[in-house]
């Protein structure tokens, strides 16, 4: 991996968040938090992740369309952040980008040819007369005919416009092309054509390409290496086939298993994630994926049955979020009473069999007509215990006597109205390395790194503490 084209180290990108009409800054969201990665010459690198994970912000920051708050970016050995004037203009010429929606990235009142020629004009390359032939040539190169130059964006299909967008990015003969969601706005039947074009352009022009996408199928199709992002951090980077066939990070495993496949018809084994993507303004401590991770590391000193630890940790997460309170438990007890027929039943409709009181997450449900506050005064400790265990699918008692003692004590505190006491009891006793410290990036095999506590590290071989993979 000698002399990469682009090298980023510890890149942080922040957005101010504000409240009220004036949007006065009240804090920052770190959309990208300490990302290090390289783009090698002539390779296609994919950056994947769910919406909101920061992948587009990372791409824009790498091209210095946004200023990083910290970190260094080197392009062809030269630091990008210090560039200005002619040097910056030269960098812009060598690093180009295409955007997700080709229709909104063209001026509807200009012909496609004018738009494609604009970079040439801005950079003062070629005279007016030769521009036309340059534009014609690049349009043909992306699979359009030269006559498309005289047409307007509304006359072209989405696939054709995406090709025109590629032509505009390539007209300056760049070394690096960043394509943000190149096919997600296109029909399936034309996606393959655009992906193949990207591949051809890379081999013929010797480009380095970065593909940003949430579509793992598209990424698998064209990328040599893939970087997986979660909540502003890289969790895994590796060669494409290795990453898809043998993912090392539980989040990558979940992503890969969520991709619907028409070739594997039928209900494939799929990793289910609990909860939602946390607020990037307030990321979880330790490994950012631990509140949803199905493989979260068990604490030492306890022996839990299959799945119990994940359920128990969900309860801890709930308590930490301040949602394990006498009121919330009273609400689910009230609901249980309705379901048991001790109160006026919920009107209307057939109740789905088997969903009464045991559906997805019944924590904190209070049917109207019963004020949870009324119930909160007269709930018995035993009721709290039963209701919370039922809501979280925890057996009574837990198979591990020490864990059972902690849980029983915490639930008794909830019944006493001491939510804070219950929280600290649970948080103190049930913790996990995943919550205590961020994982370091560890080499799984050559060129394949992942940040997860599950991966055994060989001593202290990796010195890159605190930064992402690579």
């Amino acid at each position, binding site marked *: 991996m000698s002399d990469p084209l682009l090298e980023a180290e510890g890149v942080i990108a922040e957005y101010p968040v504000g409240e009220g009409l004036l949007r006065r800054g009240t804090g920052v969201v770190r959309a990208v938090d300490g990302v290090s990665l390289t783009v090698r010459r002539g390779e296609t690198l994919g950056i994947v992740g769910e919406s909101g994970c920061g992948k587009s912000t990372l791409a824009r920051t790498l091209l210095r369309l946004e200023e990083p708050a910290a970190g260094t970016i080197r392009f062809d050995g030269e630091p990008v952040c210090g560039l200005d004037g002619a040097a910056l203009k030269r960098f812009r010429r060598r690093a180009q980008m295409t955007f997700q929606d080709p229709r909104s990235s063209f001026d509807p009142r200009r012909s496609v040819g004018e738009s494609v020629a604009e970079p040439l004009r801005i950079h003062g390359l070629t005279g007016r007369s030769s521009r036309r032939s340059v534009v014609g040539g690049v349009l043909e190169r992306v699979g359009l005919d030269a006559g498309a130059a005289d047409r307007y964006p509304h006359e072209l299909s989405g696939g054709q416009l995406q090709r025109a967008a590629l032509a505009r990015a390539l007209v300056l003969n760049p070394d690096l092309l960043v394509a943000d969601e190149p096919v997600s706005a296109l*029909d399936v039947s034309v996606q393959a054509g655009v992906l193949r074009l990207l591949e051809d352009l890379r081999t013929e022009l010797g480009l380095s390409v970065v593909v940003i996408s949430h579509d793992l199928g598209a990424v698998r199709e064209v990328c040599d290496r893939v970087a997986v992002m979660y909540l502003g951090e890289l969790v895994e980077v590796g060669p494409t086939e290795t990453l898809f066939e043998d993912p090392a990070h539980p989040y990558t495993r979940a992503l890969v298993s969520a991709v619907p496949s028409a070739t594997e018809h039928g209900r494939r084994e799929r990793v289910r994630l609990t909860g939602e993507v946390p607020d990037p303004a307030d990321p979880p401590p330790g490994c950012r994926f631990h509140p949803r991770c199905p493989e979260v590391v068990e604490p030492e000193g306890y022996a839990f049955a299959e799945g119990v630890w994940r359920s128990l940790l969900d309860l801890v997460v709930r308590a930490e979020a301040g949602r394990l309170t006498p009121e919330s438990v009273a609400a689910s007890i009230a609901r249980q009473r309705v379901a048991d027929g001790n109160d006026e039943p919920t009107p209307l409709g057939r109740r789905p069999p088997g969903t009464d009181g045991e559906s997805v997450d019944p924590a904190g449900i209070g*049917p109207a007509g019963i004020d949870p506050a009324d119930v909160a005064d007269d709930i018995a400790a035993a009721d709290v215990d039963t209701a919370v265990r039922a809501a979280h699918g925890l057996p009574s008692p837990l198979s591990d006597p020490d864990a059972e003692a902690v849980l029983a004590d915490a639930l008794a505190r909830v019944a006493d109205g001491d939510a804070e006491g219950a929280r600290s009891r649970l948080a103190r006793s049930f913790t996990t390395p995943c919550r205590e410290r961020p994982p370091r990036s560890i080499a799984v095999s050559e060129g394949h790194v992942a940040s997860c506590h599950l991966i055994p590290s060989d001593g202290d071989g990796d010195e890159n503490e605190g930064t992402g993979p690579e």
Partner: protein
Amino acid sequence: MTSDRTTSDPLLEVDDLRVAFHTDAGLVRAVDGVSFSVGRGETTCLVGESGSGKSVTAEAITRLTPSPPGEIDGGTVRFDGEDVTRATDSRLRELRGNRIAHVFQDPASALNPVYTVGAQIREAIRAHRDVGKRAARARAIDLLDATGIPEPATRVDDYPHEFSGGMKQRVCIAIALACDPDLLIADEPTSALDATVEAGILDLFAELRAAFGTSLLFITHDLGVASRIADRVVVLYAGRVMESGPASAVFDRPAHPYTRALLACRPGVPGGSRPIPGSLPDPVDPPDGCRFAERCPHAIAACRDGEHPARHRVGDDDHHVSCIHYEGNEGTELGPPPGEGAAWPAWSTRAGGRDE
């Protein structure tokens, strides 16, 4: 089920449906003789590219087709034995949201930003049921719970912007379920969502179907999604049905060249995806014969003549294909395209990969 019809009849039968739009360019027959059915408790998927007529078909079922410029100008839609195309407006209002409910693609625009989600669910309930506010609220909480919203008793008073995209779509599904519909029509309900969130919503549809026995008409352009949820699949192209049958048969033994091309063009398929050359025919002046002929590696001169090819049975089960190559060959399978050696590589190389 208020009907005295036997439960073995399909819940929804669409027969020779035709929907046309009057445009400046001329008459566009967006749906041109589409027939299919949805059995009770069954999930049927309509699949096809944009412009295939799948959404227009879905809207025409409850006559949501905007008119003008749209017009349902032929065919019948029988819901539980009743011809919906002839129903009066007041009868339609009784059916919509009550026995037939829709879930749309973009949950952000389907919800009203200035009302709480609870208010919007209550509105859907009270449009059809004579219940008090309290009972409606209790039902709203139950529905949020059934659709997998954590802490529904609190969230019921939140506004749409306080929910993530996936959670908004769950709210939309809760609204659709408000009156326990017999048929749920979901038009690309997961296309705006991330893969992990999409997987959760597909699971939810499967759970709801098991719990409520709701029939589902699911519209998608994504064959991967269809393979995960469908019992039956109907493949549309340029307003016509190309192939239909049990999901297992259509995915394991796709018969129509178009279905095969759709399966082969998905990014990430083993061996690399193959784009479908060409583009949809001119909707104002579609070609004679098979509308896919222009892009089909199997096309012969006879494909471009006369009417849409007749339906032929493939295999043993209820699997049908509209393709001239199956004429007189019922029960057999179409081989690789003629001149396999020459046709497929040309079809799959860049030269053919333009999408003009």
